[in-house]
C-alpha cells in the first residue's frame, strides 16, 4: 500500500503524521513538495509590525514531518488519475494506491494587470501573503510617514479571509502608536458588500472599522492597478488612490490541478464537502486549502478536518465505505490591534457565535475583543510547530461544540 501526499505545508504535514499513526508499518507514505522550507503563514500577518523575526516562521519540512515518511523534492506537473500516477516536472513518475492532494492555494498577482510590474515595490504596491512580501512590507511601513494607506482584497475566496481586516486593524494601531494616525487616511476595499461574509460577523467587524475611522469601500472588484498614477481601478471603473497599497491578490490552487482535470475555475480540487473524497476518482482526496470546500480556507479547517481525512482514507484502504463526515468547522483569531483579538467560530450551517470557546467559564471570548485572544494567537505559533503539525492531541475538540456559545 502506497499513500502519496502532494504538498508538505500545513495540511500535508498533518496528513502525513495522522496517516503514519493509523496505517500499518508496512504501508508506505511519500510526501512531495518543491523545497525544504515550511513557512508558518499566520506569522506573515504580524511580521510587518515587528512582532516576529523571519527565523521564527521557517523550519525544515523534513524536520517537522514524522519519521517513516519519505520526502521527495520536486514540482508536481500532472496527476494521471486513470493510471494512478503523478509526474513531476523533472520527469520523475510516482505511483500511488491513494492520493492526497494538499497543495494549498497561493496568491496570484499575475491575474491582475499592473499588480506585478517588476517595479511594484518601489511604487508602494505591497502584499503579505508571501514571506518575501511580508518582509518588504515591514520595510515600507517603517518608512511610511503618512498619506493614503489602502488595503484591498482583489477577489474572493482568499485563504484566511479575516487576515486583510486584521492587517487593517493592526496598521491603524501601529500608526496611532507612532503618532502618524492623524496624517493617514485608511481605506479598506473589498469585493464583498460588507466587512466580512458572514452577516453577524460583518456587522460587528463593520462597526469596528467605523470606531477606528477606517473608510469601507464595498462591492469593489479589482480590475487593474495603475501603480504610476497610484490608484486601483474596479471593473465598474471606480478608482481609489493610494500612497501605500496592500493588496491580497487573487488566490488560486496549483496549476497542475487544472491540467489534471481535477479542479474548479480557481484550480481547487472538487471533493465531497463531507468525506473530502474527489467527486471524480475514488482513490483521490484533497485536504486543506487545495479542496473546494464551502468553508474558510484556514489552517484551523485543515486541523479540524484531519481526523475525517485519516478515518476515511483508512476505511477505503480496508475496503470499507468512508465513515467520517466533516461539518466545515472553522475558527479564526482576529487581531484587532492594541494587543487584543477576537475569536470567531463557525461551520457549514452555523453563523459565527458569541460566547466563549472551548469552555463556558475559562474559554476565550468569541466575537468580543480581549487580551486573552491576542495571547491565544501568539501561543498558536508554538501549538502549530509542536502539536498541530505532528498530530499530537490538543486540549480542544475538533467537532464544533455548542458548549459556551450562544447565537448573536
Amino acid at each position, binding site marked *: 500500500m502506497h499513500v502519496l501526499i502532494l504538498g508538505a505545508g500545513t495540511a500535508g504535514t498533518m496528513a502525513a503524521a495522522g496517516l503514519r499513526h493509523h496505517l500499518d508499518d508496512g504501508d508506505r507514505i511519500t510526501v512531495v513538495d518543491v523545497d525544504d522550507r515550511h513557512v508558518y503563514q499566520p506569522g506573515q500577518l504580524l511580521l510587518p509590525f515587528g512582532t516576529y523575526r523571519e527565523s521564527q516562521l521557517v523550519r525544515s519540512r523534513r524536520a517537522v514531518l514524522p519519521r517513516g515518511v519519505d520526502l521527495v523534492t520536486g514540482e508536481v506537473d500532472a496527476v494521471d488519475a486513470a493510471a494512478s500516477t503523478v509526474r513531476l516536472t523533472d520527469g520523475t513518475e510516482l505511483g500511488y494506491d491513494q492520493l492526497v492532494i494538499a497543495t494549498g492555494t497561493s496568491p496570484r498577482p499575475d491575474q491582475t494587470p499592473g499588480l506585478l510590474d517588476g517595479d511594484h515595490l518601489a511604487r508602494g504596491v505591497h502584499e503579505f501573503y508571501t514571506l518575501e512580501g511580508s518582509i518588504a512590507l515591514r520595510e515600507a511601513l517603517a518608512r511610511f510617514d503618512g498619506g493614503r494607506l489602502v488595503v484591498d482584497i482583489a*477577489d*474572493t*475566496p*482568499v485563504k484566511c*479571509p479575516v487576515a486583510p481586516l486584521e492587517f487593517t486593524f493592526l496598521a491603524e494601531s501601529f500608526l496611532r502608536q507612532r503618532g502618524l494616525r492623524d496624517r493617514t487616511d485608511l481605506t479598506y476595499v473589498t*469585493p*464583498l*458588500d460588507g466587512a466580512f*461574509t*458572514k452577516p453577524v460577523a460583518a456587522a460587528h467587524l463593520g462597526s469596528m472599522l467605523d470606531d477606528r475611522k477606517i473608510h469601507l469601500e464595498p*462591492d469593489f*472588484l479589482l*480590475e487593474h492597478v495603475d501603480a504610476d498614477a497610484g490608484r486601483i481601478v474596479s*471593473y*465598474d471603473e471606480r478608482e481609489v488612490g493610494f500612497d501605500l497599497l496592500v493588496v491580497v491578490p487573487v488566490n488560486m490552487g496549483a496549476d497542475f490541478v487544472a491540467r489534471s482535470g481535477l479542479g*474548479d*475555475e*480557481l484550480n481547487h480540487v472538487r471533493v465531497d464537502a463531507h468525506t473530502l473524497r474527489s467527486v471524480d476518482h475514488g482513490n483521490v482526496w484533497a485536504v486543506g486549502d487545495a479542496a473546494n470546500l*464551502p*468553508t*474558510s480556507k484556514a489552517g484551523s479547517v485543515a486541523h479540524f478536518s484531519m481526523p475525517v481525512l485519516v478515518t476515511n482514507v483508512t476505511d477505503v484502504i480496508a475496503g470499507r465505505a468512508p465513515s467520517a463526515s466533516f461539518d466545515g468547522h*472553522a475558527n479564526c483569531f482576529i487581531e484587532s490591534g492594541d494587543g487584543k483579538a477576537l475569536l470567531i467560530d463557525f461551520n457549514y450551517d452555523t453563523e459565527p457565535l458569541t460566547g466563549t470557546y472551548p469552555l463556558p467559564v475559562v474559554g476565550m471570548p468569541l466575537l468580543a475583543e480581549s487580551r486573552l485572544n491576542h495571547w491565544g494567537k501568539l501561543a498558536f505559533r508554538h501549538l502549530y510547530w509542536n502539536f498541530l503539525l505532528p498530530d499530537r492531541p490538543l486540549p480542544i475538540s475538533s467537532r464544533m461544540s455548542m458548549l459556551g456559545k450562544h447565537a448573536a
Partner: protein
Amino acid sequence: MPVTTIAGRQVHVDAEGFLTEYDEWDESLAPVLAKAIGIELTDRHMEVVRFLRKDYLDQKETATTRRVQAVGGIPVKEQFTLFPAKPGKKMAYIAGLPKPKGCV
C-alpha cells in the same frame, strides 16, 4: 420561507427576495424580476441567465462572476455593464437562484 406573488404566481423567497425553489422559476419570470431591480433584459442578459441556470444544476451552487467568465465565456467587465454595481447578486436574483456564496 415567505411566499410572495410575482407575475401573478406564488413563489418562495428568502429575506432578501431571492427565489429559494429552483423549479418555481421559468423564463417568463426573468423580465419581471429584472424590472424590479431596474434592468431591461436583452438577449445577452438571457445568455448569462441561462448559463447560471444550467451551471447551478451541475454544481448545486450559483456561479460567481469569475466562473461566469471562465466557464460561461462572458467577461467580468461585460457582466458589470449588463448588471451594474453588483453583477453576482443581480444575475442570481434574475435567474431565481440563491445569491453566490462568494468567500466564506
